[in-house]
């Protein structure tokens, strides 16, 4: 059965087949679908540890519901039969929502994130919750209470997040996961799939257990540009419960995708090669892509964006301050892990000492420090000013060229646990070098897409930034790249 390997677009044909099969002999194709999904997911889980919650009963029930008597109706829905997975910091009442932290290892929210209902209304099935760095901070793939996430291309390397790995390994057609400084795009780049972080506010943050409220949004990972467009169309839109959500209605990206309106130009930061740890192979691949684009009539402009190089620094400071505050509710009083203490202060200290990983504590401590009266002006306020400047530079550039291209991460998926490797770098330093290209889109609230660049070894990613609310141009450019570049999948033996 080709159910999970096909695109969402091709699912219609699959469903038709199931429908035809089920008519004459009343056999039970829904069970066949469930079995296929459960088999794939548990196999992928065993190999790569991409899930935190995976529930066979829920999958069976959901597939049953979808493919039961109401199939003719349900089959018409935008995401009919599409299998999605959610990062474990997106609230679900059906599954635990742990944020990959000991602090919430048994927490089940009494509510669902806004996107859950939107997905269900569109006919999608949420098949599980994916592994990630604790509370979504970073993309090492190693800092989870539920152990490291392995890359389906090479198990010695990180996948960055379970969301990207699940999509790559065919456990799902798409994944929703958070992106505060680039985590989702980085993981997609490490895994060689596509991911779109939309404009800030395009997808409601209701029910997202965010760590950096002003930077963070949910994004989508998928294997095809059209799938990104379909899922975005289903989950994007206004939400009166999220005052930071965009007031405009979301367009029907999928139907607009095919429309003409070619990409004629794109900008590239003139100093794009100055990223620390930038790998040689990536330089060539990136320049190759620029040539390909010029070959199809896209004029490339090298532009000076002098402050872009400080984006990851500003994002590190701002996200740390917001995180230290956002995560203050984890005090052991009302929910989650509780440490033992003779009095309130001691209980707090024990709860937070034992409930959070040392890496997260280091990050929170940094946030608590740079927001003290002593450092507020020199760190937090400066970071905010830098943010304004960077957003201004980007907006001006995008106003003129419509697209900005960079690599997604300076390096391939780092080796897991390797001393001196990329992940060790990210683990030890507060300023994560993986954020170098991705953080700017979060600071400015702009949409950004990562497109996979395959090699003989691990993949890289090409990042495209667009104007606010102009996800469509990114998707169109992505489609152009999809025509020019063969997609690749690892041969998995599960």
């Amino acid at each position: 059965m080709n159910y999970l390997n096909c695109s969402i677009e091709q699912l219609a044909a699959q469903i038709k087949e199931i429908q035809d099969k089920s008519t004459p002999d009343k056999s039970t194709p829904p069970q066949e679908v469930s079995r296929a999904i459960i088999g794939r997911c548990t196999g992928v889980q065993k190999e790569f540890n991409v899930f935190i919650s995976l529930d066979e009963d829920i999958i069976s029930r959901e597939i049953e519901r979808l493919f039961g008597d109401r199939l003719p109706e349900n089959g018409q829905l935008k995401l009919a039969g599409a299998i999605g997975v959610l990062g474990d910091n997106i609230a679900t009442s059906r599954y635990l929502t742990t944020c990959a932290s000991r602090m919430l290892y048994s927490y089940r929210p009494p509510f669902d994130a806004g996107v859950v209902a939107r997905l269900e209304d569109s006919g999608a099935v949420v098949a599980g919750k994916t592994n990630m760095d604790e509370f979504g901070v970073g993309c090492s793939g190693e800092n989870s209470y539920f152990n490291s996430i392995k890359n389906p291309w090479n198990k010695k390397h990180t996948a960055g997040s379970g969301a990207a790995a699940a999509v790559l390994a065919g456990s799902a057609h798409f994944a929703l996961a958070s992106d505060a400084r680039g985590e989702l795009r980085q993981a997609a780049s490490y895994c060689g799939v596509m991911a779109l972080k939309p404009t800030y506010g395009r997808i409601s943050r209701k029910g997202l257990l965010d760590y950096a409220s002003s930077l963070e949004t949910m994004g989508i990972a998928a294997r095809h540009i059209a799938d990104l467009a379909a899922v975005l169309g289903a989950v994007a839109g206004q939400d009166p419960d999220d005052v930071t959500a965009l007031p405009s209605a979301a367009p029907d990206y999928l139907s607009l995708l095919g429309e003409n309106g070619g990409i004629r130009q794109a900008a590239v930061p003139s100093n794009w090669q100055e990223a620390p740890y930038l790998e040689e192979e990536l330089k060539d691949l990136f320049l190759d892509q620029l040539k390909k684009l010029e070959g199809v009539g896209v004029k490339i402009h090298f532009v000076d964006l002098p402050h872009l190089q400080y984006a990851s620094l500003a994002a590190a400071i701002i996200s740390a301050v917001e995180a230290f505050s956002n995560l203050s509710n984890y005090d052991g009083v009302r929910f989650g892990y509780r440490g033992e203490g003779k009095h309130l202060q001691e209980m707090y200290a024990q709860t937070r000492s034992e409930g959070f990983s040392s890496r997260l504590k280091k990050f929170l401590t940094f946030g608590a420090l740079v927001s003290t009266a002593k450092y507020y002006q020199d760190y937090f306020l400066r970071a905010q000013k830098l943010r304004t400047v960077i957003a201004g530079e980007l907006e001006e550039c995008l106003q003129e060229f419509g697209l900005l291209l960079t690599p997604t991460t300076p390096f391939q998926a780092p080796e897991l646990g390797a001393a001196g490797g990329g992940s060790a770098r990210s683990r030890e330093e507060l300023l994560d070098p993986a954020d170098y290209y991705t953080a700017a889109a979060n600071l400015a609230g702009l949409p950004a897409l990562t497109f996979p660049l395959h090699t003989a070894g691990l993949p890289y990613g090409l990042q495209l930034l667009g104007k606010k609310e102009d996800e469509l141009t990114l998707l169109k450019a992505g489609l152009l790249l999809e025509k020019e570049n063969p997609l690749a999948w690892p041969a998995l033996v599960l």
Partner: protein
Amino acid sequence: MLPEFETVIGLEVHVELLTGTKLFCGCSTAFGAEPNSQVCPLCLGLPGGTLPKLNEKALEYTIKTAMALNCRVAEEITFDRKNYYYADLPKGYQISQYFYPTGRDGYVEIHVDGQTKKIGIHQVHLEEDTGKLLHVGSIISSPFSRVDFNRAGVPLIEIVTEPDIRSPEEARLFLQKLRSILQYIAVSDCKMEEGSMRCDANISIRPAGSKELRTKTELKNMNSFRAVYRGIEYEVERQRSVVLEGGEVIPETRHWDEAEGVTRAMRSKFVSADYRCFPDPNIPPFKPSPEWLEKIRGSIPELPDARYARFIDEYGLPPYDAEVLTASRELSDFYDAALAGYNAPKTVSNWIMSELLRLLNATNTGIEGCKIKPEDLGKLLQMVDNGTISGKIAKGVFEEMFATGEKPEKIIEKKGLTQISDEDELSRIVDAVIAGNPGSVEDFRKGKDRALGFLVGQVMKETRGKANPQLVNKLLKEKLG
């Protein structure tokens, strides 16, 4: 010679707003509900449930308050997070207006010793309340704490004065005036005993004539106007003794112990807390439109000071009457309405200040719960004037009106209280009284004036108080003449 000291007081007043729902979610703010029955994921600070939605009514009330206290209103409304840990603070931060309060640089006028004095308002800002810790018995002996989050997220405004207050009496007068203003504009019920109005005082003393601010203590837990007066009075005296004995005032938070009548040190303030305030990323800045601001300004009624001046200028009331009547909007509305039907300002004022307030106090009723309609007080007074009833009977009728809310004419009719002014009828009763009390008649004739009073009383007794007293006097004097 002992040095002279000047007292310097600044107040921080917290007031709960009458919005019905919480500041950032739809939970009810009703007082006295079952613990933790008015909560939701947001006000419990549940993970993933913390996207705030500003209650527009709360902002409107804050702007209204800022305007009524003569403040400049901020052009942009922003909210910040004040970060600290405590079991009654669900999110680990309180949403407040740290950087840009809604109102700044206002003032309130109080009347002290016949003078008008301005107390500066440093700022007015909007914030959310915390939950409440509950203990079994005292906080010391209780083996555990319970937390009630019903109050968490209730909208509060904090009003901070300049250090312009110079005595416990001024502090009390300021608070009373502030309460009047807030009740006039109907943003809070300001019940200190229910905690919907709370007051902390920053107190210091300095040598008279000095302009600098000295070390202050912060005084908490004063739950009534009287407690504010007594607490400050005690604390000022305590600081004087410390200084006179050669000691130094320590900067600290002190607790007013109402039962013992003393203040006690709570925690030292040597290391002032760093709340790591920063703008709340979940609440975008909001610019009130000029139209909305105008609408709010237009909704502010005549305030106590204006009404006080009008009662003196237009009605010729003594300042004392004007002060008492305008302390509450409902009371002064009642007065205005009663006057509309019976235009004798001082008489109506007397009735309200003596009779009505006495009954309200005795029955522990607020003026808003008073059953008497203001126009009925006017009718009652007219009936005294036209001789239908006597002033004495009127007081009884008034009590009946207060208890039942019935119209005065109905009570008079029902109880047959109409005054007897018929000379023939009274004459017969007077004759009978004279015949029945020869001793008193004798006394009167010997020149004992008091005996006349007794005989009048006897006539009143016979008529159950309905006899026209002037007529009774006249008849008795004639007949005993």
